[in-house]
């Protein structure tokens, strides 16, 4: 990894160093406790009966045989659960969602939706009892494609919302004068683009455990990115005060955005436990993570742009349609973020955008790393490559000419201070000697006469925090213990990204203690400060700043206390690596433990401080350079080499940041070449809901990745200029691959995944 540091030169003790992650030992030894590892005495197992029909009204549901089955303790249907309309995506301060879900309804809106739930003394018995539940359906006409769902007269999937199967009113953005822009254009490019339905396929399937105590308090373990939202909506729907719902989550096996909904099984688990007065566990099978989990919104995009002959972009007209599946979930957020993102990336003064999100009778699509932007930037970046081709220009040159720069208004509508895209792009061009690569000898290797090689570039930018869609807030509490150690309390979830390590680094750095002396408490809503959840690439940026603020406050208090003990004024002393010393006279010193601890006549100190941070947003940037090999006989595309050049502001933990980038590239390669969760367009049935036929790239499919992180454009809103990195890498890799395929075989693809069959078909059409 190559690092350059044009930002504030500063000697850091902990930040910027790849310290050993605080969770690594317990994870590699298998001792880390995940939600599924929790075992409670008398615990029952819950299972959900899922509909084998895409759209229907439940005429009758007979659970008598299931209830009579030995070992079954309770069965729930729409007839005996509270009928409360609620949000799928429970972001409390987002006005963009429609309440469209019941815990159980007398209506089925997609194949795989839960219609009943069973609790039994074993998972096997619960599973067997599902077959004994008899449901009689009245089939309703179903729609599986947004085009069909949006037709006048199409069967309506919901009675709520704006109507016409729209999840929200169309998102319209107008800047400048698009018609005048097109009038100036020397040429216009127009194309349609589409994206499949990739699924996050996190390692840890969704799982929760509910336990009610004698005071009617619910303790709820669940694998979630948003424990406080789970608490809030469970309390709301179950009619409880927040003091009666405690949500716990320790380690997680990933989420990638998709674990920030409130899921049907979570309500059902709580209700089954209430009904039986016993703890109940519910754990998805891998199949259920597909049908009842969340995937990326399939998207259809129409994009028309006008260019001048010098490469200037003068008009952009774009329509996006996202497929929400059967419920709204994150459809509104994805539509808003994905549509507004298209105001930027490549500068254009005249922009007209329209984003729609449509219900269909298919499994629910939700939040997923890259949140709507994967789709829109795929189209923007590929069409930019097409414009370069039309102009006879190097795409790198055209992109460099048009990328956003300082002073531009970000998609969020606010000016941002650091613009790193130009630097990322230029850096990659220089490192790779791009011009030489473009002009390389393209004669096929005689040992592999059917192989063609290609290079492509993809650009992206992505915000840390969901502002302005959600006005966010980061919180942290820092306590100094009497032995000089420090405890950070945070509500930020640990998806497996190493976020807690980064937060502890920030606290240690700001406070002036060793990293090893900072402990982190997280994942208990009764204990830690309120948190909005881990999403939108914001944990290090948002919670990191709050932690830095809290650490700064306790540092001042520790200095005051030490000053008293050293009998100097606080201005005369400093604190570093757990030691307080007199400036200019470092021999006069004491440890933080000595400052904190009791001494004759003085009890130990109790120093606690909170930090609360309400940010706007920062943007991170990346340019990905990818090399592909295309086998023109089999159509197989292999990604051989990727040089991702990222600007993420100040890097807190280089290896963790690099890991995020490599992981995002792996997922992005899958989305672009092999991954697509396929729904049968005649029945709505899932055709590959499982890892046998949903294929993610594995280690052997991975290219060489030479990650370059530039600390080029720090954002003052993050700790020492740090910005997010989680989502960025998945956005740029897709267009980089599609553009590289074009470079290799001269064929443009406007969709993903690009399969071997697509390649062969296109080559034949080209040859014909």
């Amino acid at each position, binding site marked *: 990894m190559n690092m350059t540091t044009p930002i504030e030169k500063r000697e850091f003790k902990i930040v910027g160093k790849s310290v050993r992650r605080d969770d690594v030992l317990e994870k590699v030894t298998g001792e880390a406790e995940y939600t599924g590892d929790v075992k409670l005495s008398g615990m029952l197992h819950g299972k959900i009966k899922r509909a084998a029909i895409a759209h229907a009204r439940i005429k009758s549901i007979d659970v008598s045989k299931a209830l009579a089955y030995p070992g079954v303790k309770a069965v729930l249907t729409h007839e005996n659960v509270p009928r409360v309309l609620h949000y799928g995506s429970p972001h409390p301060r987002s006005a963009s969602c429609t309440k469209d879900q019941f815990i159980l309804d007398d209506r089925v809106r997609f194949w795989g939706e839960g219609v009943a739930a069973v609790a039994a003394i074993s998972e*096997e018995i619960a599973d*067997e009892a599902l077959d004994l539940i008899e449901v009689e359906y009245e089939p309703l006409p179903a729609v599986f494609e947004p085009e069909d769902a949006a037709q006048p007269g199409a069967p309506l999937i919901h009675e709520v919302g704006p109507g016409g199967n729209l999840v929200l009113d169309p998102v319209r953005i107008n800047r400048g004068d698009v018609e005048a822009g097109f009038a100036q254009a020397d040429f216009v490019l127009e194309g349609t683009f589409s994206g499949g339905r990739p699924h996050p396929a996190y390692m840890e399937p969704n799982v929760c455990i509910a336990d009610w105590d004698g005071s009617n308090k619910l303790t709820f373990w669940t694998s979630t990115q948003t424990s406080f939202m789970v608490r809030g909506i469970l309390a709301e729907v179950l009619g409880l005060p927040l003091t009666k719902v405690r949500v716990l989550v320790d380690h997680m096996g990933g989420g990638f955005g998709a674990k920030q909904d409130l899921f049907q099984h979570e309500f059902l688990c709580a209700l089954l436990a209430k009904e039986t007065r016993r703890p109940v566990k519910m754990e998805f099978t891998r199949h259920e993570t597909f049908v009842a989990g969340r995937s990326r919104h399939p998207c259809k995009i129409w994009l028309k742009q006008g260019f001048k002959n010098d490469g200037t972009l003068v008009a952009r007209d774009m329509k996006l349609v996202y497929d929400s599946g059967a419920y709204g979930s994150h459809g509104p957020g994805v539509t808003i973020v994905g549509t507004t993102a298209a105001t930027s990336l490549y500068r254009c003064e005249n922009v007209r955008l329209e984003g729609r999100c449509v219900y269909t009778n298919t499994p629910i699509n939700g939040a997923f790393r890259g949140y709507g932007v994967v789709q829109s930037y795929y189209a923007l970046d590929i069409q930019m490559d097409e414009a370069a081709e039309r102009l006879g220009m190097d795409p790198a040159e055209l992109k460099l000419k048009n990328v956003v720069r300082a002073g531009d208004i970000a998609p969020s509508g606010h000016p941002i201070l650091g613009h790193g895209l130009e630097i990322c792009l230029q850096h990659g061009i220089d490192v790779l000697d791009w011009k030489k690569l473009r002009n390389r000898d393209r004669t096929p290797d005689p040992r592999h006469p059917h192989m063609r090689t290609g290079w492509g570039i993809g650009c992206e930018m992505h915000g840390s925090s969901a502002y302005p869609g959600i006005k966010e807030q980061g919180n942290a509490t820092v306590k100094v213990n009497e032995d000089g150690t420090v405890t950070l309390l945070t509500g930020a979830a640990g998806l497996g990204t190493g976020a807690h390590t980064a937060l502890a680094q920030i606290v240690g750095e700001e406070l002036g203690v060793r990293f090893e002396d900072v402990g982190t408490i997280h994942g208990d809503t009764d204990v830690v400060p309120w948190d909005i959840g881990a999403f939108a690439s914001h944990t290090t940026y948002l919670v990191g700043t709050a932690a830095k603020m809290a650490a700064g406050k306790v540092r001042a208090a520790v200095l005051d206390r030490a000053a008293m003990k050293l009998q100097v004024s606080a201005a005369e002393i400093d604190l570093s690596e757990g030691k307080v010393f007199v400036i200019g006279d470092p021999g006069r010193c004491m440890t933080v433990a000595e400052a904190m601890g009791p001494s004759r006549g003085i009890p130990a100190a109790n120093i606690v401080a909170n930090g609360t941070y309400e940010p706007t947003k920062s943007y991170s940037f990346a340019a990905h350079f990818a090399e592909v090999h295309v086998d023109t006989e*089999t159509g197989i595309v292999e990604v051989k080499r990727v040089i991702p050049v990222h600007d993420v502001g100040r890097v807190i933990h280089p290896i963790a940041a690099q890991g995020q980038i490599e992981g995002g590239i792996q997922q992005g390669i899958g989305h672009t070449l*092999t991954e697509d969760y*396929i729904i049968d367009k005649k029945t709505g049935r899932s055709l590959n809901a499982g890892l046998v036929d949903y*294929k993610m790239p*594995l280690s052997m*499919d991975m290219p060489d990745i030479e990650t370059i992180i530039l600390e080029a454009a720090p954002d003052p809103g993050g700790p020492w200029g740090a910005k997010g990195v989680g989502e960025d890498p998945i956005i740029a890799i897709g267009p980089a691959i599609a553009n590289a395929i074009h470079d290799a075989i001269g064929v443009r693809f406007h969709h993903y995944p690009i399969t071997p*069959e697509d390649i062969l078909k296109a080559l034949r059409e080209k040859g014909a």
Partner: protein
Amino acid sequence: MRRFEYHRADTLEQASRLLTDLGDDTFLFNGGTDLLVEIRERLRRVRHVVDIKQIPGLSDITYDETRGLTFGALVTVGRLENLALVRQRYPNLRAAFASLGSIQVRNRATVVGNVCRASPSADTIPPLIADGAFIHIYSRTNMRVVPLAEFFTGPGKTVLAKGEIVTGITVPPAGDNAGKAYLKHGRRKAMELSTVGVAVSLTMEDGLCNDIRIALGAVGATVLRAPEAEAMLRGTALDAVTVKNAADKAMEECTPISNVRASADYRRDMVGVLTGRAIKQALEAFA
């Protein structure tokens, strides 16, 4: 996972009797890598499993120059994959074994189990058929030996009668004039089911193809031979034009279906490409 009864057999006779007595939903439990997944995913209704892993005499591997390679029903894919003999003499089997599942799966799964599952896309079957392997079958009244090419009757179906148990497989010896290859085509490089698999085993004499067998996986109800393509190649020098024509013929001889892995047309195309490439690779033994 659905509940099932577990039985352990200590002898073939006992296992065979259990298979006969316990009824239709009874299955042999060997490596379990497929069976357990099928139970879990509710793909197969199983009431009883009969564990044969403790039966003595089914774990041997032997080789001699006249009889060839014989391995028992309990021999894991991983053991064979890492055998020097297999690497040196049977590069086709080595390629197939090394492409099955993951390392962890191969350390439990058995070749006989993969064969008896009778999946048209099983990786181990095409090279064994191309090599002319035989399968040894036990029953309580007699033993029989069946050419592997005649073992399969449909997807998941074999000639095994109730109570019959496969004890091992024999692969004829690999002579110095033999060339062998297995090419697997999938959506990724590991932990993958074949979209198409093509095996070629051939012998050369004085620069001419003495014999050749082509076996095609995942393009029919069972693994298929391509007899007409083979006939076009026998007695020729396997020059590029002849190979191309034979590969085209193999495309006509296969009967693929469309599913989420690939369309029938694409599978047919890959039979053509991979047949040509497999012959080329098999000939590399003589280079």
